[in-house]
């Protein structure tokens, strides 16, 4: 029905508004219905975001939030020349710990989402085949998704435990390693540990979304390809992939945004490891734990800008149809 699709040319916009009683009542009701939601979102999203950005230009401290003074861009970058002629630069933009966190975040996001997408698609292809006990398997893969992140972090911390963990025990008995590894504490393996847990937990989500996309492909398309004698791998790249791509692109952007703001898994699984510290973790550390409230606000603001930029770039490059309007 024309009246309910979004993005339609709206007659009131082109002609001077002269609405009937019905339209007037509906528009009035719509405004009233939207108002509480808009107030709520302004209160919990727009206003706090504005305040965070404001704090990043002050010297506010956690113990006395109201007393901050305007310091301009000092939290981001301040250049001071001492009387001795020595130049000191300070601020987030020249903070190696911050850039390390940026690097960790992107490394984590890109690797985890890539692997999750590929694995998710593979699992979805398996689940899309018809076999006995398919429902049971689908139920089984929902379990990692249903487990709270903190619980799965603790769970895997236990599995990865260096002395009594199952992972080391198994790898030792298989002869793959000769000494016990401190998976979560060791700088060289901490990121792998985080990636494994995230992939374990999130692949089911990707698989389910891919499966939904796959099930929209008509079966006779495969049968036609079979009759024509097309090789299954060719069918996958020529038929399946192009058809699930739109759904996949949207799923990937949601996952990517989720991965870029990751906090809880890393906070619990690998606390205080510089190898895994992400933007969210370092921002919160400064905001709450280190009493560098304004500095943390500056990092939060940068995180927001970086993610906003990533979204715009992704949508622009991928021409992602977020509103589902082109269907």
């Amino acid at each position, binding site marked *: *029905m024309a009246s*309910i699709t979004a993005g339609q040319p709206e007659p009131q916009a082109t002609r001077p508004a002269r609405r009937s009683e*019905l339209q007037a*009542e*509906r528009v009035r*009701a*719509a*405004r009233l*219905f*939207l108002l*509480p*939601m808009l107030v709520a*979102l302004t209160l*919990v*999203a727009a*206003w*706090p*975001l504005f305040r*965070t950005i404001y*704090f990043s230009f002050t010297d506010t401290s956690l113990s006395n*939030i109201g007393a901050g003074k305007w310091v301009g861009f000092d939290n981001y970058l301040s250049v001071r020349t001492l009387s001795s002629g020595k130049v000191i630069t300070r601020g987030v933009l020249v903070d190696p710990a911050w850039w390390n966190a940026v690097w960790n975040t992107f490394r984590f996001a890109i690797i985890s989402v890539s692997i999750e997408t590929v694995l998710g698609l593979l699992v979805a292809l*398996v689940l899309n*085949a018809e*076999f006995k006990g398919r429902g*049971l398997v689908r*139920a*089984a*893969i*929902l379990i*990692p*998704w*249903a*487990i*709270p992140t*903190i619980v799965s972090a*603790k*769970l*895997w911390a*236990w599995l990865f435990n260096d*002395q*009594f963990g*199952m992972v080391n025990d198994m790898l030792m008995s298989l002869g793959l390693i000769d000494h016990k590894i401190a998976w979560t504490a060791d700088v060289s393996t901490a990121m792998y540990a985080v990636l494994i847990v995230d992939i374990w937990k999130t692949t089911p989500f990707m698989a*389910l*979304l891919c499966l*939904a*996309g796959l099930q929209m492909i008509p079966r006779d398309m495969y049968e036609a390809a079979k009759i024509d004698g097309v090789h299954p791998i060719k069918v996958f790249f020529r038929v399946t992939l192009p058809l699930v791509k739109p759904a996949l692109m949207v*799923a990937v952007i949601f996952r990517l*945004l989720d991965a870029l*703001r990751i*906090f*809880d898994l890393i906070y619990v699984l690998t606390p205080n490891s510089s190898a895994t510290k992400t933007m*969210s973790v370092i921002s*919160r550390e400064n905001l*709450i734990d280190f009493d560098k409230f304004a500095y943390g606000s500056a990092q*939060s603001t940068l*995180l*927001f800008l970086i*993610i906003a930029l990533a979204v715009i770039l992704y949508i622009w490059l991928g021409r992602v*149809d977020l*509103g589902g309007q082109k269907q």
Partner: protein
Amino acid sequence: MNVLKTILFYLAVVLIVVVAVFPFYYAIVTSFKTGTALFEVDYWPREFNFQNYISVMQQGEFPRNILNSIVVATLTVGFALFLGVTASYALARVRFRGRTLLLLTILGVSMFPQIAVLAGLFELIRFLGLFNTPWGLVLSYTIFTLPFTVWVLTTFMRDLPVEIEEAAIVDGATPWQIITKVFLPLMWPALVTTGLLAFIGAWNEFLFALTFTSSNSTRTVPVAIALLSGASQFETPWGLIMAASVIVTVPLIILVLIFQRKIVAGLTAGGVKG
């Protein structure tokens, strides 16, 4: 060749199931172990000792934490559904200027990095006197449950037949009556799904719960588990942690398995369609 293919296929299936289920299974096995048995790796359960469960429920504030989580998640869901139903009716059914922009803004908020509002919310919650109360959490959880709820309910509401609404209009129903008397009874499945997903989101939330609560008795379950410590500072009470984990996860898994079809539908509506 075909036999080999079938064998490989079922191997893949078994691998998927084992990888998905094993870690939680191992947690259950661990939760029944005490003392030195904890430090031996067992792939099969050897004993069923409920001591960990008894301790976790008796000592400390864990039952209180569970109650907190239930209260916070329920209030959050109720609040989000109430605001979400009316807002999604307006977004799905009424033509007005700027509707598409509004929808995209809501989608944008749902993608918000929570850390970006942490400082501002911290100030707001302190200002409102909600620090270290469940209400502070309900308020802050609105930032992710409300946009999600609105978005999913809007896609559901769009699919309801137009003619039924028009019949109600001819019958003289106001927009409010259309929502409450005609649409709501038709939307129970959607409400259950959305509510459940929002509930899971609120139940699992960690960052805000960690930041906006400060005492053991006001914490929610995820924070309590993350901060669970043993007799001494250097000893992690793995048995207790696993027991607590199982307690808070099993109801969730049961819910998810009961509603699995609806949940997949809800995720698809919220995810694939946008």
